[in-house]
Structure formats: C-alpha cells, structure tokens
C-alpha cells in the first residue's frame, strides 16, 4: 500500500505536529509511539495515557428484531445485556473460526452499537449483512465516529473534569451517552490496556477539540499521548487477544482460551454447531502464556518446541515493561497447554528456553 492510500483519523494532524512516529497499521497511518514505548506503557500503568483509536470500526444495528440479529451473529449472550451495558464477543464463521472479536454495546432492545477492529470493519459489515434475515438496519458507522481512549488509574479523575455525567456511576463495561468536553459523546468504561479507563466516541469534527481538552485536563496528572506500541504491550500483559495474532479465521474461541464468551445455552448462533462438535471431540491445541527463561524474546510466528520437536507457534511476544520479563502467548497441543511446561522457542535459529505460566501476566490492583 502506498503512503497516499493510507487512511487517516481526524487526529492525524495532531500526531504529526507533535512528532509521533507514524506507521502503516492495517492500512491506517497511525502513531506507534510518542515519547517512547516503555515510558508510555508505564504512564498508563501508573497515571493516565490517551490513545487515538479512531481507526476502530463501528457498526450500528437497529430495528424491532435487532436483538435477534446480534444474538444470532455473535457468541456471547446478548439477552444478558441491560441498556447501557457492553460485553466482549466473537463474530464467527459457520466453521467456528473468527471473523472478528468485537464489543457489543446495548443502547436498547432495538439498537446495538458494535465496536470492531479497524482492518476488519468492511468484512464484518458484509458478514453481518449476509445474516440479516431480520429486516434490521445495519449501518457501516465507522466514518461517523472518532474514538479516544483515556486509560490508567488516574483516568477517572481526568475524564470527570470534562463532563457532568457522574463517571464513577458507570461500572466497568457499561456506557452512557452524555456531553464530554462540550460535545455529544458516548462514554464507555472500557479499554484495551488492563487499566481502568474510558473510551470516548464522538463525531470526527469534535476529535481534535476533545483530544486537546483531555490533554489539558490531564496535565497535573502527568497525562501523555500514547501510541499503538504501548497499546500492544499493555494488552499483552493483560492477555487480551489481538486479531491476526491470537485469533483469526482458522482459530476458534475454545482454542483461543475464550470459552467464556461462548454461550452454548443461549440458542442458535453462527458457529455453534462447529463449536459443539469441537467441544465434544475435544480441541487439539490451545493458547497458553509463557515467560522466557533464556536470553531473547519469543515473537509473533516463532516456532515453539517441546522436547526438541516442533509443537506450536508464538502469537505475540514482547518484553513486559511492568513485569520486567519477556512474555508471550503461544499455541501448544492441548496436553501441554498448561502452566509449568518447559518449552523452547526458536529465535533466529537458536532454541531458547521458556516456560508456560498462568495468565493474565498482569492484573491491576483492585
């Protein structure tokens, strides 16, 4: 893809003007880092950071039968959602592999708001439309929204300065529509860092104003703009899946250690038959965390050895700034996909020792 063809968020000019390092991220011109990846990572763990995640896609589903379409298209139990509540879910193919992993927000019985991965949004939209025998209105809403994430233990205090909505009254994975930094916004207590925080959805023309207001409001708290690099190490420490790494079209939620988002007893949904079969037969591989014991970093797609033989592959791997260790996630045969297994990871033609460990690697203090 040439630079000219890259898509830009409404905050692109802000990133470039402040000297962020930009990369092509799935066809989007996005900031990978500002002050430095480790500095940004630590800022989110200890104070508060702000991320432009406007590249993320949104799909809106409306109509009297909206519940039925969303419940049929996704793996989690939509009936459990109250108005103003959200959950993590899977959008699957019939064969049980992932089309995408998504957040489903219930606005009302007749209106759902899906947040989906940037590079999957067109595919997701077509997929959901193909399932729409419920006469719903399915809207490709990405262009309608900018999204800004405020994350970290000080996120609540900073965000509260910018809205009259009582933010402490919004529980984790709930959201409310209100006014934020003087403009209409959807304020969701969600995130992809393992910290407390909010994701603010607003119209693209308001993005720069909201961003600047957040930066001002967070000055005392030591707020810093953060890039996708820190977002990745933060989500990995918290063992949150990344499409194209831990999950994809050939991987099922049972294999990805995401059985908790699959509600078999809720009734029919796309992929249910395949997953039931998988559950009956038993899965042959599963995602598990590891820590390097030898010197090196086991990275995405590196081979994993058990007793010297090829046994799996790394899906994500990185130094974990909060933990001071080199960690990662990998697929291993089901019998070995548990903590305490000695494994080796092939790093530039050398087998380096590692060990499987419990996950998440990091959990925020309550």
């Amino acid at each position, binding site marked *: 893809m040439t630079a000219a063809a890259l898509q830009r968020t409404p905050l692109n000019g802000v990133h470039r003007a402040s000297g962020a*390092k930009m990369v092509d991220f799935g066809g989007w011109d996005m900031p*990978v880092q500002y002050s430095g*990846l*480790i500095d940004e990572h630590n800022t989110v763990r200890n104070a508060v950071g702000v991320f432009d995640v406007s590249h993320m896609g949104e799909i809106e589903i409306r109509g009297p039968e909206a519940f039925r379409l969303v419940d049929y298209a996704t793996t989690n139990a939509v009936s459990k959602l109250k108005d103003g509540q959200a959950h993590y879910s899977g959008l699957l193919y019939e064969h049980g592999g992932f089309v995408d992993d998504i957040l489903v927000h219930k606005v009302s019985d007749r209106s759902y708001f899906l947040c989906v991965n940037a590079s999957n949004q067109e595919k997701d939209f077509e997929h959901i439309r193909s399932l729409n025998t419920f006469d719903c209105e399915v809207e490709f809403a990405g262009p309608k929204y900018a999204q800004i994430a405020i994350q970290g233990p000080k996120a609540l205090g900073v965000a509260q300065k910018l809205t009259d909505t009582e933010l402490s009254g919004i529980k984790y994975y709930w959201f409310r529509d209100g006014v934020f930094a003087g403009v209409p916004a959807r304020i969701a207590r969600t995130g992809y860092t393992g910290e407390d925080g909010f994701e603010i959805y607003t119209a693209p023309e308001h993005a720069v104003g909201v961003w600047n207001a957040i930066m001002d409001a967070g000055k005392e708290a030591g707020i810093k703009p953060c890039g996708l690099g820190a977002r*990745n*190490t933060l989500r990995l420490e918290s063992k949150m899946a990344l499409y194209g790494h831990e999950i994809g079209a050939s991987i099922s939620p049972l294999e990805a250690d995401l059985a908790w988002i699959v509600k078999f007893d809720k009734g029919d949904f796309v992929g249910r038959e395949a997953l039931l079969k998988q559950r009956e037969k038993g899965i042959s591989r599963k995602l598990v965390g590891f820590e390097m014991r030898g010197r090196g*970093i086991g990275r995405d797609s590196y081979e994993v050895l058990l007793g010297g033989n090829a046994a799996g592959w790394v899906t994500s791997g*990185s*130094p974990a*700034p909060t933990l001071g260790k080199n960690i990662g996630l990998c697929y291993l045969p089901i019998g070995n996909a548990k903590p305490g297994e000695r494994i080796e990871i092939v790093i530039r033609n050398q087998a380096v020792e590692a060990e499987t460990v419990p996950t998440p690697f990091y959990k925020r203090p309550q």
Partner: protein
Amino acid sequence: MNYPENFRYTKEHEWVSLEGGTATIGITFHAQSELGDIVYVDLPKVGATLETGKSFGSVESVKAVSDIYAPIAGEVTEINETLATAPEKLNEDPHGAAWLIKVKVESPADFNNLLSAADYQTYVGAES
C-alpha cells in the same frame, strides 16, 4: 540530528569511523530512533570475520528485531561489552559511548565507498 562529519554511513543505518586500520562500527541516531526502546544487542565474538553487506548481529527493541549489516570487511578485535547489560545506551548515545564493535579492516580504501554525513542526512531525510 548532527551526524559526525568524520564518520561514513550506510543505507542500512550503520556508521563507521576509521583510525589507522581499525574501524569502529555503530548504528545511527536515525536507526535507534526508528527502533525505539532497545532491549537486546547481539554482537559477534572477538575474532569473527565480517563480510561487507552481511549481517553480523542484531539490535532488538520492544517492538522489533533488526539485523546489523557489516559496512566494511575485516576481523572483530573488540566488542562493546557494556551493551550486554545496558542496551538502552544505544538510545542515548548511538554515535559515541554506544559503539558496537571495532574491526581490523581488510581494505581501508573501502571506507571511502560509504556515504558521507551529508549524503546520509539527505538519504534519511528523503526516507522519512
């Protein structure tokens, strides 16, 4: 950034300085800046032979691994041991204290085939 005038550079972002028949080799300010926080540096052993254009080691940041290519042929006479325990020095002083290796050069004339500071700066400017 100021790229020392007496160094020569490669398009793969290594620098070389030459004193007598010994070259000191490092990675450029631009290289460390592109990589971000550096966490590992893999270097050859003393006595290893470098072939021009071939990878002789790697530099690893939080987000990526990058090969280092030999800008000039020769035999490794010294490696910068401090980088094993303090790889972050490469982010702080890439043109100075965080040099990588010293090499007894086969053919000192090859030095002149590399990019001048001005040419490298132009190249980096055009790349970014």
